[in-house]
């Protein structure tokens, strides 16, 4: 017994002594390094393995691709020093900056891009974002390589010389430049990668930088890690921060208190905290790109196959009430199937300039809703309807769903909407399997083109959960992707608009709102760029006074 007590005491003292030997905590917010909160751990710093927004943000802190995003979301050169496109739009030749180097001193070469892209397509890597090369980017042979039918060296990307990269495409892709800032397309130094083996990108030592910052402190699933400014960065004069200190906080109330305590320069807030800070001048609501919408299962639920019933339901939804009284975080009511502020044409015009474009076919109108409802009742020879809607188990989505239920049931007498709350992964699974009647879901853009949304409602697309099918719509989208409009950008633009009208008039989905993220940014910090696509935050132009 004595022994146990002695051991316990001794150990406690050992802990105490080592602990007290350290200095008291200094203020984390000191210096010109930015203290940034993230909500989840980084999944991976390997550009071809990462799939989530947090990982992409951090990878882009220390890695540049051929292109980067400007503050307004448009595309501009990064490592690319010049680009030529063949007349048929199928061959791209990129010159790589002569002053672009890795942090180990080696130059960034065309081979680094070839290796990175081949890794992404290689089925052995099993990159979840390989479809960026094949389906989205239409890089030559990418689909065959991903399916294991061709070897990686047959991928349509090759190094002409050390600083010249040639890319071949299957069909012309009008937004090809816009996807090159996506981390899946980032270069990887092959010799360094092979030296690191399995430990590649798991620590500061096994990571190479060619970007604005260099990783100095990191371990897998770390709750805090650091980057410092890369003095050898070709654009170093642009970077004003001395570094980035990341910290994971999963409890949003702790995050808010820590921010007020001065531990952070910027944090993300949960929707229910917005009320507490909405009058704070440091509060900012930023577009998250996500479109939330309702999917009716048209093929398997006969009542929902009735257009009049679907029109009645979409007219019965008061979206303004949902954003103003339930969400209250800056989210905006949506009356279109493509969100605004993410897809622009060459003239800089927003594909969805305002959300009211299709409000004639969906905005809240009790009289119209009843009119369509009565027609539906006659056609279906039924006076009452009962449906079940599947909803994510988050508080916010349950609140939104409760309002939807109330709105539909009060506007359309005889209609009952039951809610089935499920964990997100179960909800997604049910929608993929088609085992649902009505689903409340969301979609975030993968690249800055309306096709990232419109492509979903093509017949047999895996994300066409309602199993809608329309030949005219399919033909229009075919023309815009691989057909005659793929290089005629103006025609393509208007064809996509036309396609959107078809699906909106057919009430394929009932758009609800465009999600916003609530953030707090200290008043002495300027120039944090927020984007709804690919890289959620960029700190290259951030200044901390």
């Amino acid at each position: 017994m004595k022994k146990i007590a002695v051991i316990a005491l001794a150990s406690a003292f050992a802990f105490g002594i080592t602990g007290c030997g350290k200095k008291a905590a200094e203020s984390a917010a000191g210096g010109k390094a930015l203290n940034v909160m993230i909500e989840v751990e980084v999944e991976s710093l390997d550009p071809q393995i990462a799939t989530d927004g947090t990982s992409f943000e951090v990878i882009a802190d220390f890695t540049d691709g051929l292109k980067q995003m400007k503050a307004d979301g448009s595309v501009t050169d990064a490592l690319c020093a010049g680009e030529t496109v063949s007349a048929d739009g199928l061959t791209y030749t990129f010159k790589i900056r002569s002053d672009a180097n890795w942090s180990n001193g080696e130059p960034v070469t065309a081979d680094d891009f070839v290796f990175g892209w081949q890794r992404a397509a290689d089925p052995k890597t099993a990159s979840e974002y390989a479809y960026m090369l094949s389906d989205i980017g239409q890089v030559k042979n990418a689909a065959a390589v991903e399916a294991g039918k061709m070897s990686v060296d047959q991928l349509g990307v090759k190094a002409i010389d050390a600083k010249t990269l040639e890319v071949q495409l299957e069909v012309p892709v009008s937004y090809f430049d816009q996807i090159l800032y996506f981390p899946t397309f980032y270069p990887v130094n092959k010799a360094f990668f092979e030296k690191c083996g399995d430990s590649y990108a798991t620590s500061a030592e096994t990571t190479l930088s060619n970007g604005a910052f260099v990783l100095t402190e990191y371990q897998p699933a770390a709750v805090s890690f650091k980057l410092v400014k890369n003095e050898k960065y070709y654009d170093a004069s642009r970077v004003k921060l001395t570094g980035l200190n990341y910290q994971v906080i999963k409890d949003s109330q702790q995050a808010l208190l820590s921010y007020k305590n001065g531990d952070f320069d910027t944090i993300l807030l949960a929707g229910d905290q917005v009320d507490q800070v909405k009058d704070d001048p440091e509060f900012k609501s930023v577009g998250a790109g996500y479109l939330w919408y309702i999917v009716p299962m048209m093929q398997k639920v006969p009542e929902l196959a009735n257009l009049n019933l679907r029109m009645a339901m979409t007219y019965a939804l008061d979206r303004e009430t949902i954003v103003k009284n339930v969400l209250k975080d800056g989210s905006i009511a949506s009356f279109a199937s493509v969100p605004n502020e993410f897809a622009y044409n060459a003239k800089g015009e927003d594909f969805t300039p305002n959300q009211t474009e299709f409000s004639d076919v969906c905005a809240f109108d009790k009289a119209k809703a009843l009119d369509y409802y009565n027609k539906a009742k006659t056609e279906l020879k039924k006076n009452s309807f009962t449906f079940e809607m599947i909803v994510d188990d988050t508080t916010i989505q349950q609140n939104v769903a409760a309002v939807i239920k109330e709105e539909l049931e009060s506007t359309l007498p005889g209609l009952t909407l039951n809610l089935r709350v499920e964990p997100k992964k179960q909800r997604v699974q049910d929608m993929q399997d088609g085992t649902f009647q009505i689903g409340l879901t969301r979609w975030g853009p993968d690249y800055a083109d309306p096709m990232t949304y419109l492509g979903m409602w093509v017949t047999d697309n895996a994300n066409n959960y309602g199993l809608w099918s329309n030949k005219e719509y399919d033909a229009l989208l075919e023309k815009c992707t691989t057909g005659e409009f793929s290089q005629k950008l103006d025609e393509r633009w208007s064809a996509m608009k036309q396609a959107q009208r078809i699906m909106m008039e057919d009430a394929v989905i009932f758009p609800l709102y465009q999600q916003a993220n609530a953030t707090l940014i200290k008043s002495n910090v300027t120039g944090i760029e927020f984007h709804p696509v690919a890289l959620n935050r960029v700190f290259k132009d951030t200044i901390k006074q």
Partner: protein
Amino acid sequence: MKKYILKRILISLFTLLAITLVLFILLQLMPGSPFNDEKLSADQRAALYTKYGLDKPVFVQFFKYVGNMFHGDFGVSYNISKNTPISQLIAQRLPVSIKVGFQSVFIGALIGLLLGIIAAVWHNTIWDTLSTIISVLGVSIPSYVFALALSYQFGFKLKWFPMLYSTSHEFYSSVLPSISLCMFTLASIARFTRTEMLESLSSEYMELAESKGVYGFRLIWRHALRNTLIPIITVLAPLIVDLMTGSLVVEKIFSIPGVGSLLVTAITSNDYNVVISLSFIYSAMYIGIMLVVDILYGIIDPRIRLSEAVNE
């Protein structure tokens, strides 16, 4: 004695194996898969299943997993930290949880013991009532309430301690989490000590000791407390495991890079290997400690061993 220990060890090993198998089957029954992002195509999902061997039957996966485990290979994480060996994640995070857990057990046991003794020695006085109130509060208020209150008062308002765990000031930043976690241990030990102590104090051997002229501190320490401590080990042992494996919510509040928060994330994201490995380690620690307690009991109190032998 040898036979008794060997039997105990064999039962423990079998229990561990059974737990792993049950976990394997339960995880298969969970909705979704580690890769059910709606953006993944069926081919991509199949490629990922092949890469991680998830396309094989459950029993094949199970035996392969158990085989690898003997070599210390717990597999890799599927989505919390893609492709990182679980052994590495655990090596990084378990020491943090153990450290914070140990500190809180130590604080909790020490103060709990003191409170218990005070309550028993000054039985039915204001001290007894006070100690009982503290115990009741400690048992009934969950640790995250203490965590939030302490972090608000001493972290945010008074700024005595950091609000978040920091690797550069490990001890300093682990004070508040340790105190939040220790309350349950403190309360349990205090109540238990009080009861046991009262029993000892009213026993005949205490009267004998007193009549022999032993009194005061010496009487309490040598005669009452020593007899009280033995049963306390039984209470303390499972508490130690609970705390070392971390409190899930307290880790989340203070952003402690421990295993508790890792397990929660793993369960919600279907990171099978992480769930299995951590549950395995939790179970192994629990069973290990119970084994030690059993053996200690056998040594301390031969009747336990004998009664088993008789039953056989």
